[in-house]
């Protein structure tokens, strides 16, 4: 029996994602990978280790809204040191210092997402705002001297997450203002991607586009990928299904304590027919809130 005959759906997804990561690495000089600390971008990080044989030659970028659940940051820095990652974070210092955020009561959720995530992301990618880079020897973050714009940004978006993401390309162009033109996207076929781009524009690269939430957990199980413990019920009958900022992300009621129990819950249990981001408040604010955010540069 050939190995090809035994390729299961996870093998297919993994191999395709690895191929895309290598294409991105070969074609973009200033390439970065967004790491939200969530399960999807952590699987993406793992796939990068697969693609590059245990190494991650691409800097990881975390947009720190300063409202992330503290355990997420601890986990980020622990893996960054353990896996020898080039770790960079950026944030919207102006908005935070001026207390112009939703948790401060100054603005609504969507405006807060725009300020702390979209704006922080755009300006961190462009290099206009300071980037903080982990110094492995000193174990501290220092202002990064490199302020060159990223021209390729790898993102862990999945098509099944919500409507607007199902229309993405693997290599999806953004104009100079990070805008996404949903109606006029390049064709993409035969493993050939848009790797050429006009000055000032950049590309978002989506290696996980074809993965589902269940696939992500199946793969975490198969590869034994370390995940942040917030995803598991620790005895209070609650766990996070999707991670974000603490003021806008609620845990769901669940007894799942392990990866196996999460998989079972997704396959047959109470979440089988409920969308993953149901705990995310910004998706529901106004009509098509997330698409509006995404066109404007949201991940």
């Amino acid at each position: 029996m050939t190995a090809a005959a035994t390729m299961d759906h996870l093998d297919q997804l993994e191999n395709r994602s690895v191929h895309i990561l290598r294409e991105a690495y070969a074609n973009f000089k200033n390439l970065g990978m967004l790491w939200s600390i969530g399960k999807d971008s952590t699987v993406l990080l793992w796939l990068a280790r697969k693609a590059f044989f245990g190494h991650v030659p691409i800097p990881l970028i975390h947009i720190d809204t300063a409202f992330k659940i503290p355990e997420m940051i601890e986990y980020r820095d622990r893996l960054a040191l353990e896996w020898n990652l080039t770790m960079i974070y950026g944030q919207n210092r102006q908005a935070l210092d001026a207390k112009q955020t939703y948790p401060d009561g100054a603005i609504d959720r969507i405006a807060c997402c725009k300020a702390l995530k979209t704006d922080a992301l755009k300006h961190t990618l462009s290099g206009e705002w300071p980037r903080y880079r982990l110094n492995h020897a000193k174990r501290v973050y220092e202002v990064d001297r490199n302020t060159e714009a990223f021209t390729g940004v790898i993102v862990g978006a999945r098509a099944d997450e919500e409507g607007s993401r199902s229309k993405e390309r693997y290599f999806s162009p953004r104009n100079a203002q990070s805008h996404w033109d949903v109606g006029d996207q390049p064709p993409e076929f035969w493993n050939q991607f848009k790797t050429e781009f006009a000055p000032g524009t950049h590309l978002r690269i989506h290696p996980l586009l074809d993965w589902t939430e269940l696939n992500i957990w199946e793969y975490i199980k198969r590869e034994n990928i370390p995940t942040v413990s917030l995803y598991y019920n620790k005895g209070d009958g609650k766990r996070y299904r999707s991670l974000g900022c603490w003021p806008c992300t609620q845990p769901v009621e669940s007894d799942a304590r392990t990866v196996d129990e999460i998989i079972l819950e997704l396959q047959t249990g109470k979440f089988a027919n409920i969308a993953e981001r149901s705990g995310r408040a910004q998706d529901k604010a106004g009509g098509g809130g997330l698409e509006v955010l995404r066109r404007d540069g949201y991940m």
Partner: protein
Amino acid sequence: MGQISTSIAPPEPRVSAPVGVQRMNIVIVGHVDHGKSTVIGRLLADTHSLPEGKLEQVRAQCELNSRPFEYAFLLDALKDEQAQGITIDAARVFFKTESRPYLILDAPGHIEFLKNMITGAARAEAALLVIDAAEGVQENSRRHGYMMSLLGIRQLAVLVNKMDLVSWDQAVFDGIVREYGAFLDQVGIRPSAFIPVSGRGGDNIADRSQHLAWYRGPTVLEALDAFRSEPAPTDRPFRMPVQDVYKFTKQGDDRRIVAGTIESGTVRVGDHVIFYPSGKKSRVKSIEAFNRPAATRADAGHAVGFTLQEQIYITRGEVATLEPEPRPQVTTRLRVSLFWLGKQPMVKRKEYMLKLGTARVTARVEEILRVMDASTLGTTEQRSAIQRHDVAEAVLKLDRAIACDLAEDIASTSRFVIVDDFEIRGGGIVRETLPDRQTSVRDQVLLRNYKWEPSTVQPERRAEKYNQKAALILITGDSETDRKAVAKALEGKLFEDGKVVYFVGIGSVLYGIDADIERKPENRLEHMRRLAEVANLMLDAGMILIVTAAELTQDDLEVIKTAVQPDWIETIWAGDDITTDLAVDLQLPTGAVPEAVDQVKSHLQDKGIIFRPW
């Protein structure tokens, strides 16, 4: 419940497919308004694949807007889609039958969105093609069928929709089967079924219709489940386009790993591997992977990496193959079938970029053989341009040789795309490779590379030691310019900078190595070949070689590129007017020699051949 999702893509539904079964990607295509979205809405609803409350939510919205409910609305996930009432992209929809999970790529029917249809179809293993029973076969139905054939989709079921509007009349159905079946036959597609359906009523979608008792074939669901997952082509010759050669020395990893995705065939540790277009050979030492036990073989479909026994210099764009399996085609001239999506027509004399596998080369249209009329499949008169949405047969001329296969031999390594102005504007398949002027030289070079004795000193080590990249700097110009003065001054300057550099005037070769051949035009090819072979040796030694020759042409350059690593060559034209067709990397206006030298030096720094001092 309050859990309203904006997603059209439901989480995994209740009915679980058997563990380990592969998901199948299906594309659904058809002319606008022939009812694709309704069919998908039905499939989702009837297989219970919708998120909880979604159906009720959409029904409630319709009621609110006093609009009759339609199954198509289930798909209208994006706001502007609902505004325009047409699908604007190839959307992905997940659902499951009892036998396996599916991903349906919903491709738009409107001709304006052909590129989205292609995007969707190229990711699919099988297709559903929808034809409106009342409207019958449209030009777009034919175009879509033809595209499926070009894209390489062999499994197809035709849904004759809206049978309710033709009173479930078998004669209407049979007419479409005859007409469209004959068309598909012409483009080489044998459909698995023609199915009379009504998306609106759910007839023959998941459940057998009572209105269509005369029909004995499968329902849509049965037709879907009858499609077979096409196995990765392990039975074909081994082909792996090289994506990259990795070396993570700084991370304390000394492995030099050739990485890529295997398009066809199988490779094993110990196999003799030959890379094309260069023809360089080595043996597979190990197959590398992370977090997985070491393997001794790797098959088609896998993104892999291997190390080599003998170290050879290869780069992205080469294709790894095995000896003694059939070798790929290597040439600069291709006869192709292609489709064009650009708003600007594809024309002769314009430079395009062709991407095939991981190779990327400049391409021009040498000849447009014929443009096909998708509506009749007839051939139109001689045309000088390929218009948007045309399908054509043409001869493409590349500025350097690539390795590829013919579509009939190995489909995946016959496929290419054309890039213009940063965008993919067209795609096609290689039907035939044609001889070019360098064919004889190439054969000699392939043999030379095959017989080459690799050194134990790796090219990277030489580059590190000499602190430079090997390069051939061709300085040419009309006979009036003093290119030799520039070349010699450049050599002196680089030498003083500590570089390993050497200058050769063409005369030094003509009267030495070429002493046995007469200096006449028909021997120019051989002169160039010998010059290139000399250059190749010196470049392999890690040198920067500066060569001067009068009025080099593109033809000359292409001969040289055949024998020398093409990306190691820099062409420089000295003088104000370029008097040949040579593609020039740098032009030096007439002026003082020291300035010219500085200009060349700066160019070499830009190209990373020598490094700028910090």
